[in-house]
């Protein structure tokens, strides 16, 4: 192991979130898009604390003190995280202040002074919308400190009555609108907590309101059995903490104005450490900026118009067209609406016998779900494999399941212990010459909403062998079979990683034999130790490796004797880079794959993922165009140098290349 070096995944994740944050100060980013990046940063950080930091706390509580691959004990790691997260939150505050000043110049006023006409409107919002919903709890022997739910904003109020100090808490209800946009000659954006804070005397008649402070807790999200942790560690945690109370506090965000006595009071009643406290300026929780960002379309990215490529229309002849060749779609540049329409067409087509689909995350009111239900009502066999474990989407997932079951679909929930992450659709059609299977493999979810903001590859083919393997995959997922043969598709957890390792080994062999050996890997995360070690070996053997890793990266780049033949870049832009595309030179055969799997232990071992080899030459060219464009990007790309990311800028005289803008204008597939 000493021959290898790893970067801790949490630290790397924080670096990724910092890259997201930096978009909010990139001068090329439209003003209101900057607000979105600030909101994404906040939302990402919330999830990070709920899941990842909570996990580290569990390790510390279980007295687990073994160093991880990057050389940190859980305690040391927590210290590092706290230090970095505090720095980033401070930076976020600065950027926020700067951005709202710019917004004000464009007549969008966030956190305005509330007076005059605005004051009257705010008062009526308080009276009509807010007051009926809030329930203050003034602490006393009869009213103990209430339980504050995860991520819920609170106002901690200091009161006086008859010379005595009282404390009270208002937990802002979840169903209360967070931000009110008041359009006068300017657009004023006022948060609900600001409105409550200025109306406190009305809330506490008979008391003197001395002061009030915003407070927000982040708790262990009760999803702590992380499948990517080492099994022995999980067992240890379970054994040591039989009565572990899920929901322990992992972060406290507190108003900068709160005096020490308030902090001590809260600490005594809630129970948290000093390093968990994040003292911030109001407002806390900048996710409300998502709602502000639609205030003026002119201050957003110009609307881009996705198009349906290859002259396809989902009409009655579509299946004949699909038999002619393989089709690659690149969202969001290509219109995902076609893909939804195709499913609708399949639902209505008399010759279609069956439709099978995986649903990991779908949008509310998904037309795809509607089409599937319609197909079932028309007597087609519709099998839907729903993943109920998609994090934070459980409730919505259960909703679809019921809707589909009611319509007569066969709904299954996959394989116990394995999250289903592969994205497949299979349409089985009885045609005069026999059964034809139309396979649809994707790197992204069948989600019409996220299809507009995530980049992903959709691949449609009527190739019989691929159809056979897609059918095998559904048979496995539905529990119809326990074994299957694979050729073009490799499936995790059984064969995907070994396939990747053997492909890398082949490059190593060639490099050692003095032959050309190279690979390009576009993924979202790299943390799997075995794969990282193999990449180290490949680098040492002389394989040229170019990696485009959006998020977590557990490997250094360009370190002499270790990763000197490896370059790593991350692209953070308008759209969330999401497809996994992998290229191997393979002795000149140039093999290309798309995949749903990130190179993480959890994806390799605890999920059903797929790696699909593309053999169609046009499709391969398309994939290479994407990879080359990603590697050419010099405006939205960050390069990893050792363990530090540096944002690329075009050199003097060098043309700007923004890969996402390039594809918006490219009209590929016409």
């Amino acid at each position: 192991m000493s021959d290898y070096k790893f970067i801790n995944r949490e630290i790397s994740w924080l670096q990724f979130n910092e890259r997201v944050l930096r978009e909010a100060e990139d001068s090329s980013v439209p003003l209101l898009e900057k607000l979105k990046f600030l909101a994404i940063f906040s939302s990402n950080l919330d999830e990070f604390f709920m899941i990842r930091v909570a996990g580290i706390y569990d390790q510390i509580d279980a007295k687990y003190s073994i160093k991880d691959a990057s050389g940190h004990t859980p305690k040391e790691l927590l210290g590092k995280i706290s230090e970095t997260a505090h720095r980033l939150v401070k930076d976020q505050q600065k950027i926020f202040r700067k951005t709202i000043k710019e917004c004000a110049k464009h007549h969008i006023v966030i956190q305005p002074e509330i007076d005059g006409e605005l004051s009257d409107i705010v008062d009526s919002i308080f009276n009509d919308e807010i007051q009926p919903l809030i329930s203050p709890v003034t602490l006393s022997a009869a009213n103990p400190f209430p339980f504050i739910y995860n991520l819920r904003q609170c106002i901690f109020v200091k009161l006086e009555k008859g010379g005595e100090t009282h404390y009270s808490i208002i937990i802002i209800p979840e169903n209360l609108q967070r931000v009110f946009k008041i359009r006068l000659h300017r657009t004023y954006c006022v948060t609900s907590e600001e409105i409550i804070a200025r109306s406190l005397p009305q809330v506490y008649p008979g008391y003197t309101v001395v002061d009030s402070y915003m407070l927000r807790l982040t708790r262990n999200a009760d999803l702590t059995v992380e499948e990517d942790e080492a099994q022995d560690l999980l067992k240890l945690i379970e054994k040591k903490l039989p009565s572990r109370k899920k929901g322990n506090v992992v972060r406290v965000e507190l108003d900068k104005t709160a005096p020490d006595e308030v902090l001590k009071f809260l600490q005594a009643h809630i129970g948290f450490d000093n390093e968990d406290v994040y003292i911030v300026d109001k407002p806390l929780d900048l996710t409300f900026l998502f709602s502000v960002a639609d205030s003026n379309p002119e201050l957003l990215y110009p609307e881009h118009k996705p198009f349906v490529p290859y002259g396809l229309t989902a009409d009655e002849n579509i299946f004949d067209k699909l038999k002619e060749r393989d089709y690659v779609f690149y969202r969001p540049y290509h219109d995902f609406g076609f893909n939804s329409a195709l499913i609708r067409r399949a639902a209505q087509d008399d010759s279609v016998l069956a439709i099978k689909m995986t649903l990991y995350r779908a949008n509310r009111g998904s037309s795809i779900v509607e089409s599937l239900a319609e197909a079932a009502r028309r007597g087609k066999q519709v099998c839907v494999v729903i993943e109920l474990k998609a994090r934070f989407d459980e409730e919505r997932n259960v909703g679809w399941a019921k809707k589909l079951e009611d319509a007569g679909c066969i709904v299954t929930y996959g394989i116990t212990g394995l999250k289903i992450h592969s994205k497949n659709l299979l349409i089985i059609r009885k045609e005069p010459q026999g059964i034809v299977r139309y396979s649809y493999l994707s790197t992204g979810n069948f989600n019409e909403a996220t299809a507009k903001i995530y980049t992903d590859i959709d691949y449609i083919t009527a190739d019989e062998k691929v159809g056979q393997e897609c059918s095998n995959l559904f048979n496995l997922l539905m529990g119809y079979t326990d074994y299957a043969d694979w050729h073009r598709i490799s499936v995790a957890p059984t064969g995907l990683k070994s396939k990747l390792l053997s492909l890398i080994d082949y490059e190593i062999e060639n490099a050692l034999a003095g032959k050309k050996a190279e690979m390009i890997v576009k993924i979202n995360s790299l943390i799997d130790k075995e794969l990282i070690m193999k990449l180290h070996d490949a680098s040492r053997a002389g394989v040229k490796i170019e990696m485009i890793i959006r998020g977590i990266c557990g490997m250094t780049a360009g370190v002499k004797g270790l990763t000197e033949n490896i370059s790593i870049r991350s692209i953070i832009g308008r759209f969330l880079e999401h497809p996994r595309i992998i290229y191997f030179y393979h002795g000149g055969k140039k093999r290309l794959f798309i995949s749903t799997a990130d190179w993480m232990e959890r994806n390799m071992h605890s999920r059903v993922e797929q790696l699909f080899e593309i053999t169609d030459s046009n499709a391969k060219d398309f994939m290479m165009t994407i990879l080359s464009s990603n590697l050419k990007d010099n405006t939205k790309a960050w390069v990893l140098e050792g363990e530090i990311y540096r944002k690329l800028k075009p050199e003097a005289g060098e043309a700007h290349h923004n890969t996402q803008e390039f594809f918006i204008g490219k009209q590929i597939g016409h």
Partner: protein
Amino acid sequence: MKNGLFATINIGASAFRMQISEFNDGHERIMETLVKPLGLGKDTFTKGYITLDSVYKATNILQMFRHKLDEYGIKKNYKCVCTSGVREARNRYFLIDHVMNKTGLKLEIIDPSDEIYIKYIGVKNDIKGFESYEKKGVLFANISSGNVSINILKDDTSIFSGSLPYGSLRLRQLFKGIPIHSRYKAYNQYVETMFNTINSSLGGASKIKYLVCSGSSVNTLQFIFNPKVNYFHRTELEELYERVKDKTSQENMTALGIRISEAKVLVPMLETYLRLMQFVGTDKVQFSRKSFPNVLTRYYSNNIRDNGFRNRLRNTLYYLGRRYNFDEPHSKVVTDYSVQIFDALGDLHNLGMNERMLLEAAAILHDIGYYIDARMHHEHSYYIAKAFDMPGLDQEQIKIIAFLVLMHRVGTDESTETRLSYLNMETQLTIRKLVSILRIADALDTSHMQLVETVDVDVQSSKIIIKARTRKHAYLEKLGFDQKKDMFLETFGIPVELEMKVLYE
């Protein structure tokens, strides 16, 4: 050959398998291959019945397979067959009924001889030049969880056929109480007894040249050896045996990367393979890569053939006859006349080639019971014929042959009629038609002297005339004919007459 979709579900002793194929002018396209492990055999071979838990699990699996049929819109074009794991369970009919009620799937229990026959013709259609093996001598063995089915062929004759209770899972269950380090010795002794059975049935040395195997065991060995050729060599099997014989299933599973269900039966299975090789005296065991569900699908959809079956059947029946010291010339002429009359009366009996084959078989065997006792020879012929086992002939066919030999003699008693009445009307009628013909043919050689040289059948509107040319006056034949002709009239509603003419005197 049929075009379209066809599905087969095979309920084996250790797994449920399904295959759906699309046939188009003889070309097969495998659409689906499903495997779900469930050890029904483990219940059956130890307890004698399938536990309720396994019945429910089986039903769940079959419900899923039903979904696959629905997916392709397959309503009737499927077969769902059960082998020893169900066949030998006391509560098999409960399982069949439960599955029918819950899934609508109709399960059929496949006879051991049908099972091995289907596997056999699967191999025959897959291995090039297999027909020459049938001449030179081949032992075909199907080693499955429950049974070892063996078919030995030589000179286009099936000289041994049987399904013997030596399947790997059965052995494993039988000796699971013996410590692991000596358990293989128990397997060794037990397998030896299987060869005693075969040897006593063969009744003498027969040189066999080839050994061909099928069954789930082949899949395991293929996984272990990944052979480029279609055979395993003795040395590799011996080496493997030495490595695994005294190891636990867990150790073997880990060392070889096989499934635990495979590891559990590995040692008894290798024991059987090696002993079979020793028996045949070969260093190679050949195999086919076609799976049983695949062969089943092609068989039931009429997409594979067994060329030479009739010839093999005939040879096997004569082989059997000789073992019982039968009057071969008599059998031959009765067979010839039977077939000749059958062919001439096609419009009258409306029977097909299958019935013709059964008539021919019965004609060969009809007097085989003389070996035991002349007076009641028809009864003895009946049970010998009933015990006849040859892959390719099902129990229904064998039953008809047995009834034909029983009834070839005039004056069948009440018990014959009673036994006959258990059969359905259609089968009874077929038997009566064939017996009527067999009796006439038998009468034409009543003397067992082959006095009749040629026979012509003259079909007239009001009667059938059998024109026999004889070497000399055939008094007994005339007498026999008169005694045996009545059933013909009763069955066909038309009289049959004999016109005899002596050719030389």
